């Protein structure tokens, strides 16, 4: 795929400016900026709104639901045309969503879902985390062919839903490949430092020569693990294949340097599809399905990772 | 008192060993119903150990205990309490942040429908306390009452729970005269009801005031049990020490005081001590007399900078100084042995050695540690000079007896070679032997030319060593006594009449 197309899909997704979207006001209640990905989502959302001439009212909740509820009430009071909500927790939204419904303001959930009746919101735009794991697993199945492959797995925070889903998706993908086995699986808490520490113990316990691939539930852990592999005297990306999920800039750089092999993108562009849905709704009242999945695109060494790295770096990752 | 009566409690041939050392050696103690029995002895004689063996806090190594004629073997204070032996300690063992009623009924609260019946509890508490002549509101926090009342609440609790034998371990140590009277009236009330009371104290006057008999312990052995009606204080002291205590008589006249060293003008702190003037000369002891709360301790504190004065001026050998903190006082070669040894004096877990060099080291600063040989020399010198009795200077100071702790604190200050030493109640709560030694030390230091300020509630003591006595009342200096004026009579008169300062 050409770089230009990639950019279009991944971040910009330039939709033709439709007249009906212009001069509309949309409120966006963001969780906060607890991770680079979250910061990128904020940046992309603002860019998307600007492209389409939408007046975006942005509210940072600093990880607090009460702040989000306040922001939503304020959006309702201001009479915005629609609300984007990235909910910090799943429960406790019913009454404020009802208020929005009473005011006839459509609400679109971004990135996460809530435990509320689905007629209280228009739709939820999220990625499919199980599918992300599947894409990573499929890549590995294709990459190793019929060779024996002993895989070590760096899990996300124990008990968190992305960790559970990404593990399940990966296991589903390799279920039909008896030559691929997960020999060690331990949590790296989604952090770079723990990724490195845990990978060190994997390397000691199994021996670098006995590990064929690393699957990490996020790129940060993979980046940490890559350093551990190098310090153990092995070559990441070659002796040990590295596949992870998220597609953060540093991972693109690692792929560009040949130290990692593949990553599945969790796109920060949740707002693009959301605005598309709103455009269609404002144009002719089209109602979307209750769940809109974002694309989980696979990046490998075939892409121009250096260029993607440069571009993504500016998004606030 | 007829000895043919059945004893309430009889402990026979109690033995207790600690790591090879004998703490109690064949100790007998017999209590009759309705008597107050004083348990006397120097610190470390084995009084507390005996009590702990009786209540089961310690496991005795030999001997029998009979309560009302039947042998008992309590394995802890809770069990002995249930059997009928209640104990009240000097530091009240109650919960200050709960109400009086809570404290009285903790563990056996009256219940209704699974809940504490607070109304009934408060009413019962008021009734019980009224029986002790206390008419207070039991629904208020314990901490809102004085130590004496807390003490009575503790006694009431012990009596309600036990009811046969009551052990009072130094109950009067922190009480003033009126409070002691209250306590004693409660004790008399209890003995009239037939309880046996064990009274442990250092105050011999109080022993003779309230007790019927006394058992004296020395080095873990009973040296005698006496009916107090038949003996004098001197007899008891002789038993305790095993020797005659030299009567502390006032010497004709000490050495002539030297030059003025500290001069305080209009010195005071609002709410603590009214402004006063004081000229302190080398080689004199200025005694501070007065009742509890009269300003003795406050005077010591404000001079040493524990609380800095808010008015007046201080001159040290003619040079104006600001005594704003203990640290600056230390730098100006002042020293203070505080009244409350445990909380303000010793650093319990540090060794005796470290406690002795603490102030000297503090003055040198942390960057210039004293050398090991210097420390050893200082510690050896003062351990010997003050006859501090210890197994090793490396043992934590909290393990020493009260008298030895006090000597170690004196050593701490003497090691700094002070010009002025302030002693606040230097002999409180320590045994008779150490008491005499400290008084001798005060006289010796004075003779060497040191200037001392000594606050004490023991007037005989002040009379013995003071060059001058300043009498305080209601936080004000009311009188200064000099030379032949210094007698207990005059001091008492000055305190009670509040004569205006001459």
């Amino acid at each position, binding site marked *: 795929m050409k770089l230009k197309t990639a950019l279009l899909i991944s971040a910009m997704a330039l939709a033709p400016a439709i007249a009906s979207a212009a001069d509309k006001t949309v409120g966006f209640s963001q969780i906060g900026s607890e991770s680079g990905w979250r*910061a990128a989502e904020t940046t992309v959302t603002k860019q998307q709104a600007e492209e389409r001439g939408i007046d975006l009212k942005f509210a940072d909740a600093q990880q607090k639901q009460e702040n989000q509820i306040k922001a939503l009430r304020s959006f309702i009071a201001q009479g915005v045309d629609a609300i984007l909500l990235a909910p910090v927790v799943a429960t406790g939204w019913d009454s404020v969503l009802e208020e929005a419904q009473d005011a006839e303001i459509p609400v679109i959930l971004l990135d996460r879902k809530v435990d509320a009746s689905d007629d209280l919101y228009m739709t939820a735009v999220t990625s499919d985390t199980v599918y992300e794991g599947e894409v990573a697993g499929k890549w590995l199945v294709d990459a190793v062919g019929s060779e024996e492959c002993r895989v070590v797995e760096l899990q996300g925070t124990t008990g968190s839903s992305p960790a559970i889903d990404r593990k399940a998706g990966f296991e589903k993908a390799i279920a039909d490949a008896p030559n691929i086995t997960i020999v060690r699986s331990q949590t790296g808490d989604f952090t770079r430092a723990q990724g490195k520490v845990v990978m060190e113990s994997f390397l000691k316990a199994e021996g670098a020569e006995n590990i064929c691939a690393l699957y990490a539930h996020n790129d940060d852990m993979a980046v940490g693990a890559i350093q551990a592999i190098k310090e153990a005297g092995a070559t990441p990306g070659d002796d040990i294949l590295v596949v992870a999920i998220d597609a953060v800039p540093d991972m693109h750089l690692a792929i560009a340097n040949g130290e990692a092999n593949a990553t599945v993108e969790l796109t920060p562009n949740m707002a693009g599809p959301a605005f598309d849905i709103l455009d269609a709704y404002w144009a002719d009242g089209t109602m979307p399905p209750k769940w809109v999945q974002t694309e989980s695109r696979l990046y490998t060494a075939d892409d121009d990772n250096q260029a993607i790295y440069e571009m993504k770096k500016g998004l606030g990752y | 008192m007829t000895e043919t009566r059945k004893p309430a409690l009889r402990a026979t041939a109690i033995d207790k060993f600690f790591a090879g050392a004998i703490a109690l050696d064949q100790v007998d103690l017999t209590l009759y119903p309705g008597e107050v029995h004083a348990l006397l002895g120097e610190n470390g004689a084995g009084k507390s150990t005996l009590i702990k063996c009786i209540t089961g806090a310690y496991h005795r190594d030999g001997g029998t205990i009979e309560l009302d004629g039947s042998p008992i073997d309590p394995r802890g204070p809770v069990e002995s309490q249930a059997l009928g032996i209640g104990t009240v300690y000097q530091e009240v063992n109650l919960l200050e942040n709960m109400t009086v009623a809570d404290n009285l009924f903790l563990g056996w609260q009256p219940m209704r429908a699974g809940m504490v019946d607070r109304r009934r509890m408060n009413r019962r508490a008021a009734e019980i306390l009224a029986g002790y002549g206390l008419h207070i509101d039991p629904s208020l926090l314990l901490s809102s009452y004085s130590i004496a009342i807390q003490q009575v609440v503790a006694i009431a609790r012990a009596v309600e729970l036990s009811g046969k034998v009551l052990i009072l371990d130094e109950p009067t140590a922190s009480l003033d005269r009126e409070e002691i009277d209250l306590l004693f009236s409660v004790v008399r009330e209890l003995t009239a009801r037939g309880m046996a009371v064990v009274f442990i104290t250092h105050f011999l006057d109080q022993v003779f005031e309230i007790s019927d008999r006394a058992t004296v312990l020395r080095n873990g052995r009973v040296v005698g049990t006496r009916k107090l009606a038949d003996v004098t204080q001197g007899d008891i002291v002789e038993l305790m020490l095993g020797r005659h205590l030299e009567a502390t008589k006032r010497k004709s006249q000490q050495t002539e005081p030297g030059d003025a060293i500290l001069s305080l003008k209009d010195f005071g702190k609002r709410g603590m001590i009214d402004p006063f003037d004081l000229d302190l000369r080398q080689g004199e002891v200025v005694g501070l007399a007065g009742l509890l709360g009269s300003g003795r301790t406050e005077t010591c504190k404000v001079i040493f900078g524990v609380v800095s004065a808010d008015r007046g001026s201080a001159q040290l050998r003619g040079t104006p100084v600001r005594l704003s903190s203990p640290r600056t006082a230390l730098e100006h070669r002042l020293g203070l042995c505080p009244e409350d040894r445990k909380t303000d004096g010793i650093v319990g877990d540090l060794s005796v050695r470290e406690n002795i060099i*603490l102030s000297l080291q503090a003055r040198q600063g942390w960057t210039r540690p004293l050398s090991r040989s210097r420390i050893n020399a200082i510690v050896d010198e003062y351990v010997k000079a003050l006859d501090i009795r210890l197994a090793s200077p490396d043992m934590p100071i909290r393990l*020493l007896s009260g008298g030895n702790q006090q000597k170690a604190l004196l050593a701490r200050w003497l090691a700094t070679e002070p010009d002025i030493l302030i002693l606040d109640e230097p002999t409180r709560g320590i045994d008779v032997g150490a008491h005499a030694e400290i008084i001798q030390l005060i006289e010796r230091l004075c003779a060497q030319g040191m200037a001392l300020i000594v606050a004490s509630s023991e007037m005989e003591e002040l009379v013995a060593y003071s060059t001058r006595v300043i009498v305080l009342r209601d936080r004000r200096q009311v009188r200064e006594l000099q030379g032949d004026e210094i007698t207990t009579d005059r001091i008492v008169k000055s305190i009670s009449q509040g004569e205006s300062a001459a």
Partner: protein
Amino acid sequence: MIGATFRRITPQLIILGIVLLLNFLVFPGFFSIEFQNGRLFGNLIDVLNRGAPVALLSIGMTLVIATKGIDLSVGAVMAIAGAVAASVVTGGGGWFTALIAALAAGLLCGLWNGVLVAFLRVQPIVATLVLMVAGRGVAQLITEGKIMTFLNEGLIFLGAGTILGLPTPIIIWLAMGTLVTFVVRRTALGMLIEAIGINETASRLAGINSRVLLLAVYLISGVCAATAGVIVAADIKGADANNAGLWMELDAILAVVIGGNSLLGGRFSIVASLLGALIIQSVNSVILLSGMPPEFNLVIKALIIIVILVIQSPTVKHALYLLRASAGSAVPEAHAVGPRNSPAKETRS
């Protein structure tokens, strides 16, 4: 002197030995150390290397706890120091400038805590809680919420380099531990810190300047935390403000406690705390090497630590002492061996 120190840390040495043996049982190759790529390579080296942050924190924490205080902010200070170091090198500064800037940030944080505790008399747990919460925010402001990666070789060397085959962090914590121990024990600082921890009123009345000492321990704690923060950032070539040092203050406190130091202040041993840090890291190592599913991590860790703390409890110690005394031929010397709460404390003058 040496004998007393050895006796003090005997329980920690025994526990460390047992946990290391546990490592050996779950992974027989545990004790093998190889020399490859110019560095020592082995699980034992990992324990020493990965234990570095908690070991460094425990040095400062020991002193703070000895004064009856606590420093909850060390994890956040790590994040700040890492962020400062990273922003200096990404801004074109050298590694040494970055290190100095990070340590200065640590000192500043220590100063903040110290002033609150020593001068404004705020309770230590409250005073340091402020920085624990706010500090991570400061670090996030510096990194703008992302992982600030860097490629400065000098800085990376501090976390991932080797000196004579030993990973740099090991050298750093050993050096820091030795330095601080030397300073507190060769000067009177240690004794004065213990004095104010045991009885601050009495110490003040004895003429000790408790404010300056309190300030000093929080400054030392800040510097130790900053050093740990630089190591952690250098190790992953990036300052991760969200996660660097997260909850590590609890591990540091635990290390001090496993080291047999009382949370009520007073007598302390830095060596014992360092052993405590190594014990914690060895427990982590057991978990990683055992290959158990991560759901068991916290349960295993909790179980091992409960056992360690129970063994160290005064009651159990006393029971062991009695056992020894009754089984042993000679009655032990009362004050040298007797546990703190034994009845042996009664002395007779």
